[in-house]
């Protein structure tokens, strides 16, 4: 009977014990000393012992109180250390299990919001987005190249290619720009996905007199 009471007390401590060891002490005292399982001086001694030995103070005090309490409440249990052992196992597990479950079932939620899986999904979406944009871009840029003159000043061509890239990455894959959010999509260094589009790539290679600085970086970026 005392074991059930101990387990119940320590489950409550596990659920409401916010703030770690010392913050739990008042709760432990309330639920262990007040029913008369352990005397006030004994509790003070247990705190001292828990502090002197390695390990978290909550576990230490739970183990000690679990060992001492059954013998103190029912004198018939005081003889054999096995009853104390049972009590300390019960208390230690009872104080750990609630928070254990909370962390386990809090942790997948946490993983879903910020973890690896989401990051990977993001990249998957980005890749498929840019693939779709790729095929669209081929058509669009082809049409654009019909309209715009082919070999004029390099600045103009640059503008045209970037505009194309800006349209593609901006409209068709809004999630495809994970880290380049600060720069506007059509600025010179932000050719993010252009490295993946063979048509525009060759177009730009033909038209540009010198490669822009963002070029090699853009290739690496699209494979990240």
């Amino acid at each position, binding site marked *: 009977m005392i074991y059930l009471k101990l387990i119940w007390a320590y489950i409550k401590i596990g659920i409401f014990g916010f703030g*770690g060891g010392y913050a739990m002490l008042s709760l432990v005292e309330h639920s262990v000393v007040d029913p008369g399982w352990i005397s006030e001086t004994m509790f003070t001694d247990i705190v001292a012992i828990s502090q002197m030995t390695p390990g978290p103070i909550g576990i230490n005090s739970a*183990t000690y109180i679990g060992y001492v309490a059954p013998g103190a409440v029912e004198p018939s249990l005081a003889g054999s250390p096995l009853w104390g052992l049972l009590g*300390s196992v019960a208390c*230690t597990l009872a104080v750990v299990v609630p928070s254990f479950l909370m962390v386990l079932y809090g942790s997948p939620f946490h993983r879903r919001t910020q973890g690896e899986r989401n990051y990977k999904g993001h990249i998957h979406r980005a890749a498929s987005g840019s693939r779709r944009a790729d095929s669209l871009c081929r058509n669009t840029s082809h049409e654009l190249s019909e309209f715009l003159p082919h070999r004029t000043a390099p600045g103009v061509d640059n503008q045209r290619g970037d505009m194309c890239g800006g349209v593609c990455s901006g409209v068709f894959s809004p999630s495809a720009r994970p880290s380049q959010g600060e720069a506007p999509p059509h600025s010179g260094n932000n050719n993010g996905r252009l490295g993946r589009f063979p048509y525009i790539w060759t177009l730009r290679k033909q038209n540009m007199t010198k490669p822009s600085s963002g070029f090699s970086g853009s290739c690496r970026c699209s494979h990240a």
Partner: protein
Amino acid sequence: MQDRESSSLTSPRASLGELFVSFLKIGAFTFGGGWAMISIIEREIVDKKGWIRREEFLDLLALAQSLPGILAVNIAVAVGDRTCSRRGAVTAALGTILPSFLIILAIAIFLTPDLIKSNRVLSSVFMGIRPAVVALIVAPVISSAKAAKLTLKTVWIPVLVALLISLNIGFISNPIVYIVLGALGGWLYFKWSVRKLRKTKGGDA
């Protein structure tokens, strides 16, 4: 499955045995509970073994800290779950608990309350320790009061609650009541401040 593959790409995989030994060492050689353990866990798991990146560890720490229970066990469960899923969580938790459990069990078997009372040396040793325990408990009170940024306006709350709990009258002095009331109060304050913020924003627009 995909998840596991990706984590093996970014960081070395931890085996259950390694995880258990790491947390066993952490549990056996750290004195002074929660926060003293955190830095040692970080050094072992992040710096030495590289199972988890530092930012991820800080995220897990935030999770472990905001949940109730023993901080060291919470962070062990979170780290174990992240490195070896559910089995890892159980392993890491057992590794953290086991050393202190065994040590305290040995002490409890030999250092019974009757022995402390009857042995003159031991009883005088514990007489000397008891005032020091008061200091041990007061020190975190001061540091957590600083962390909570108590002002003259709010200092009455902990003082009043402490008095009510020490009065020791039934329902009123149950610490759980104040924990729940505090959580409720914080939630209501959050709601109220959000509403206030919305009102001022609406007024501007």
